[in-house]
């Protein structure tokens, strides 16, 4: 009887010592999970999720402070990928954060632009070039379509132009094999 108690207690003390020591000694700094989440997010940097950019949103998800369905540009597919990564059930997009839109780029009507630079300050990826009192232009290849430049423009010279499907952007469609009767 006494041996049993001794063995149990001895074992417990050893395990406790090892775990307590390791907890401090081998602490992992940084958050690899946030990196992985960030890699899935579309990097639009639009802030629709309620966070100032994709990275902060990724960190919030990793900490469990934000839900996975707050990113409209990522769409349902993005939610699904996040759900898969985190091992949770996918859920529909939270519409209070916006709805997915076709991919677009911003376009500045240079006839109207007064060169106020407000949009340049708003752009999260520095995709607008121009200087004060001179008209601005969008670098279409770098524009993420986040729409953050629309509200500050005092003359409403910016419009979102959906990316049209042309030959270089055309994709083969998924072939459909009709086995089942469509109900």
């Amino acid at each position, binding site marked *: 009887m006494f041996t049993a108690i001794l063995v149990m207690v001895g074992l417990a003390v050893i395990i*406790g010592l090892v775990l307590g020591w390791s*907890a401090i000694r081998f602490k992992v700094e940084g958050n690899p999970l946030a990196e992985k989440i960030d890699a899935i997010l579309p990097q639009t940097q639009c802030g629709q999720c309620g966070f100032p950019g994709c990275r902060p949103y990724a960190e919030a998800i990793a900490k469990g402070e934000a839900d996975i369905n707050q990113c409209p540009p990522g769409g349902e597919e993005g939610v699904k990928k996040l759900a898969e990564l985190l091992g949770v059930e996918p859920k529909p997009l939270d519409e209070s954060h916006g709805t997915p839109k076709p991919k677009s780029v911003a376009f500045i009507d240079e006839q109207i632009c007064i060169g106020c630079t407000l949009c340049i300050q708003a752009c999260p990826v520095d995709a607008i070039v121009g200087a004060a009192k001179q008209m601005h232009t969008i670098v279409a290849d770098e524009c993420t379509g986040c729409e953050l430049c629309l509200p500050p423009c005092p003359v409403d010279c910016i419009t979102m132009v959906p990316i049209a499907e042309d030959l270089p952007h055309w994709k083969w469609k998924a072939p459909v094999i009709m086995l089942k009767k469509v109900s």
Partner: protein
Amino acid sequence: MTLQEFNTIFQNGLSKQNAGLVQLLGLCPLLAISTTLVNALSLGLATTLVMASASGAVSGVRHFVPHEIRIPVFVLIIAALVTVIDLLMNAFVHPLYLVLGIFIPLITTNCIVLARADAFASKNRPLHSVVDAVAMGLGLTMVLVVLGGMRELAGQGTLLSGIDLVFGEEAKQFVLHVVPDYQGFLLAILPPGAFIALGLLIAAHNWQKARAERRVHAAAPMPA
């Protein structure tokens, strides 16, 4: 604890996060022991008992347990409780103990017990934790009973066989011979039968869930 909390916890345990059908946790005893209804019910109740006491205990000490040693502590608590129950069953329901045999100590490693201790009890107040454990346990027991019933019925055409192991010799009269002169369908009693029956149960559960969802969709008012 409000009634609503209580309801939510019970719904989770019995259906939404049912250990057997949704989380698929603790399948080892689920499959091994569900050969008859009585076996299934007994092990289910034993597991529920262990879960309830373990969750209560874990919840009670949750403030004294540092994060890094929580698992050893939980395991210690669970193992101690299981051993106690094992000894008690051995002493007072010996015939049943002979049947359930090795599966009682296995409750220790049944992940659903540890899962609830870590996921729920270590973060909630004792009362909530015990209710959650009971709900989870009953959810598992429910699945076990249905599974045991299915397998017993298909396998040997009876229900409640072995009830005498729990209530003594006189209880034998309660055994239901549902199909008289049954040939016996061994597959149901053998391990593959457990997997097939569980598969069917999960399928039925999912089907029912999908149907309920469809109905909710259909019932939703159309936007004007």
